[in-house]
């Protein structure tokens, strides 16, 4: 009973002063037909990868290489003073799979899975600046402080794990910084804090206070908890808030269990060698990301609902933010993530978990088809177009949704807003974005705002 009752990180009881849902432990909206995903892994390619250099093949751009883009508003990107001409992709594109999906040579291993993936090429967003765009992508608004997708999913679906946080975030372990706005990207905003993402520290103990201090032994701690339970129960009789106090007693037991079960979830060294090899956990170029992807799979197996995995650090050369040297920048981050991402897909599939796990790949915006001038040309931010792909969780394979214009500058056909994308992600998890609401400041707040966003139904099989 308790094991399934959590709403958040080891959550047991919850008494809200807000007018929260009557029973915070149960799903908030009924499942709708089609939602198959029990878990979601979002590989957040931080900094904004370039669509025309990855998944959005634009032969016309190559033809017009070097030409001026007429009518271009220099304020579109971040550096109005560095506007160059159209620039073809420095990467080679080939078709893959039965679907004949065009992919650049950045992702040789991931490309082997295109027939399991749905690509949305016509995404667009409202900001050309990292942190507002990150907030938009994570919380549906460019302002700071709103609940993120993971929190909404966590709130909507509840938790299946009794010993792990149900929404975790992993950031770059290579000392390249956090995504801009850091914790606000996985914050619960006005939702109760139990629904916020738990940031696993990339180095050292991933969860705060998880280890029994050296000054005390596990046996002594066990004796302490027994004493605590006894004393608490002695003063419980006649209390008006007995269930709340009881929940507190249980929370110590849960914490005690977590001390062993959480480290076990992180113990990728227990994986057989062929699995470690599959993810490349010992490879220099991708080991760090491989470990995170493998951890993500172990979490999915243990009932964690939402895992966000940031590829790349803060900005510029630390992330997919290829202002200069788009070639070197994207090559580097693709090398780090290609094998682990491909491994994650294969591994979930071979365990029969891919159908119930949605993988999302995408960042906060796209990049311009024109060059950002410099010794090694890069590409500036582009809010008008970017590609997001999804895989698993009931999503169609080898499917392409929407199109950009012929040079990949702006989404042109079947445009998908960030709210549409969010509605679609919620739908994949069986949540109706119109009914997943929380009362705050007098209104039924939603992740997807008031502008009638649409679920991209076509991506579902």
């Amino acid at each position, binding site marked *: 009973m308790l094991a399934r009752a959590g709403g958040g990180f080891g*959550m047991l009881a919850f008494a809200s002063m807000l007018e929260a849902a009557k029973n915070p432990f149960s799903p908030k909206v009924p499942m709708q037909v089609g939602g198959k995903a029990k878990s979601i892994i979002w590989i957040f390619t931080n900094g904004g990868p370039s669509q025309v250099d990855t998944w959005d093949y634009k032969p016309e751009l190559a033809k017009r290489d070097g030409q001026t883009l007429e009518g271009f508003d220099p304020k579109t990107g971040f550096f109005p003073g560095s506007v160059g001409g159209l620039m073809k992709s420095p990467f080679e594109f080939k078709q893959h799979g039965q679907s004949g999906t065009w992919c650049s040579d950045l992702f040789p291993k991931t490309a082997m899975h295109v027939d399991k993936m749905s690509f949305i090429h016509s995404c667009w967003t409202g900001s050309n600046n990292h942190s507002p765009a990150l907030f938009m992508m994570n919380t549906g608004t460019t302002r700071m402080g709103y609940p993120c997708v993971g929190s909404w999913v966590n709130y909507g679906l509840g938790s299946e794990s009794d010993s792990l946080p149900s929404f975790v975030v992993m950031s770059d372990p290579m000392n390249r910084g956090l995504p801009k706005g850091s914790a606000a990207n996985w914050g619960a905003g006005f939702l109760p804090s139990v629904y916020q993402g738990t940031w696993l520290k990339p180095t050292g103990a991933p969860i705060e206070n998880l280890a029994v201090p050296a000054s005390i032994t596990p046996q002594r701690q066990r004796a302490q908890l027994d*004493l605590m339970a006894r004393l608490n129960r002695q003063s419980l009789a006649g209390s008006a808030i007995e269930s709340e106090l009881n929940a507190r007693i249980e929370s110590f037991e849960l*914490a005690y269990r977590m001390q062993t079960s959480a480290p076990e979830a992180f113990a990728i060294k227990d994986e057989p060698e062929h699995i470690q090899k599959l993810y490349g956990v010992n490879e220099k170029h991708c080991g760090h990301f491989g470990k995170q992807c493998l951890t993500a799979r172990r979490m999915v197996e243990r009932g964690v609902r939402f895992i966000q995995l940031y590829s790349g650090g803060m900005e510029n050369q630390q992330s997919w933010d290829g202002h200069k040297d788009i070639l070197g920048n994207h090559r580097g981050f693709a090398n780090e993530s290609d094998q682990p991402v491909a491994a994650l897909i294969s591994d979930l599939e071979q365990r029969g978990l891919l159908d119930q796990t949605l993988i999302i790949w995408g960042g906060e915006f796209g990049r311009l088809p024109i060059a950002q001038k410099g010794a090694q040309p890069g590409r500036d931010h582009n809010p008008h177009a970017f590609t997001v792909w999804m895989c698993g969780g009931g999503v169609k394979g080898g499917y392409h949704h929407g199109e950009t214009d012929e040079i990949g500058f702006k989404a042109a056909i079947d445009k998908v807003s960030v709210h549409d994308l969010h509605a679609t992600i919620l739908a994949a998890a069986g949540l109706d974005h119109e009914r997943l609401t929380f009362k705050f400041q007098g209104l039924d707040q939603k992740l997807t705002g008031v502008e009638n966003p649409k679920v991209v139904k076509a991506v579902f099989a």
Partner: protein
Amino acid sequence: MRTFLFILTTSSALAANLPPDHAKRMERGLKLFDSEVAALLKQNCLKCHGGDKVKSDFDMATREDLLRGGSHGSVVVPFEAKNSLLVSLINHAKEPNMPDSSPKLPAEVISKIEAWIDAGAPYSTPLIAGKKPKKDASVVTDEDRRWWAFQPLKKVQAKSIDELLLKNAKGMTFSPPAEKAVLVRRLQLDLTGLPSSETSDKSDLSDLIEELLKSPAYGERWARHWLDVARYAESTGFEQDYDRPFAFHYRDFVIKALNSDMPYDQFVKWQLAGDEYEPQNPLALAATGFLGAGVFPSQITANEVESSRYDAMDDMLGTTASGMLGLTLSCARCHDHKFDPLPTRDYYAMLSTFTTTTRMNVDVLPDGKVTSAITTMNAKKNTPAVAGATRMMICAEGYDPIVMHTQGGPFFDKTYVLKRGSPLMKDGEATQGFLQVLSKPGDAKRWQWQPPAGSKSTGKRRSLSNWITDVDGGAGALLARVIVNRLWQHHFGTGLVPTPNDFGKTGTPCTQPELLDWLAAKLIENDWKLKPLHKLILSSRAWQQSSARDAKKEATDPANGLFMRFVPYRLEGEAIRDSMLAVSGVLDPTMHGPGTRDENSKRRSIYFNIKRSQLIGSMVAFDQPEPLVSQGARPTTTVAPQALMLMNSPQARQWAEGLAKRSSGAGDAAKQIAMTYRLCFHREPTSAELATGFDFLQSGASLADYCQVVMSLNEFVYVN
């Protein structure tokens, strides 16, 4: 004058648009409507726009609503099909294509709708029988003013809180008074957040209230409640989350103001316009930190300069409105408030108060002179050049603003009314005004304050503060209601209005309206001083009731809106940590000054430096809210990270050892146990508790192990 002109131009524009043959065309349009168009609209549009739903705020049920348009602005321009958004949408020339999620309408249907619009889009009858057009939310009526929160304070004849509560008690009576020892501990935690074993149970409760109210710890405890409301933090948020190293003076202002029992109206006035009241008083200047405590991006691209400025002003106004008036005014930024009489034009009239208000660092010199100080964001090591000067962040006008990485200036000279909140859709300049629902037409001048010649500021914030504190025709009655409700809430765990930041129609109704007004009137009678109000509440039978379970009362009044019992509530994270520090004997009582993010600090938790990207783990675990928007009430969650912190954090262990050290001198094991209970709970252990503890210690466990358990008990973290 401006309004008058505006109306003239609007009406002449309308007149010009009316075609000369309009009467004839309308006649034709009516026929179209009755024969076909009404049916077409009902079939294809009405379900989402007036029937089951009103999507995008666009309702087609009546002609008035049709012409008013929706969240996308005007939808139908009578006599001008080609200029009507509706026509573009159904022709799929613009998004969102309509009808939504359905095939495009056949060409002949579209042309009939176009013809009908060209004929003036007349209705012979609403599309839903009997439906009345929606009230124009931009106009505030006397009916709107009748909402209880906007009314002047009712004159309530009563002698006491208890009398008023009993009047509504549905035949119930108060629970018996709590035991003296329980009350002493309850009082200590309530007023100071620190348990103390030094008070004798024999001391007079009334004296104890006085004594605790005089304790500096009172201000430290109660300031924290207000800092939630003020979304207080000491960093910018957003991408770099730069420190605001001189922002802590605001926190100190709140503590000092509460400790000195500054009248609440002055407390409000200074936070909005301290610099305009006493330009050389450091405390008055620091108070304006209220306006500046919100988030602000540190990196702003050219096309975000204007929108981020409107966001910043919205933060100031929104926090003022919800924190001081319990109004969700920010909702009116993009459209007239859907539930409360808060039109968008009122929002922008209020917003323009802050047109030239920005964050700035100033040095207050010993002689009272104030000069601009460093304007860069990350100014940690910078200290004032003049000895004895105090450097503080204020939020005011006339000094050099702090400059972010921006492709624009710190503010714009004018504030405009924006349609749908978009700086791209300006609708005339906004001039300062106040909420219509809390003023009378033509009254605005009364509150207008002209700054003396040579003043650094515009006087607009002081004008706002005059209105907001004016009990006679301004917002003063609501201001008083909102603060007395907050006092009640922190004494009882729940407010008389359970939604302390929302006194509007979407809030939870007041459970004791007469009592609220009576208390508000008392506050004003007492020169807006809070301490007499605290004493009044704490001296009541209501507050001193026992918290013992009463099943019958729980069944009759589960939410305890009648206050015929006292419901225990969990302490906030700050008070839990402060209590642990206090009982372990290591609490460092140093007040004020810069804070720290070191969890090993031994100062009270209010002195934690609050950096938005690096919030203090032990505080967040115990529900300290993210300092992003005003928070009136914290949720109480019970989660495993709290237990982990009490079990495994080095601090918990250290404090347990501190408590053990204090108890160890008491004598044998039984005496040590008794001492621990006295220090922690202000009572003697029961014989069962004594025996249980004795067994534990006899089994070879250390006194520190025992003390750690006691500090983790329910009783330690709950106010009983």
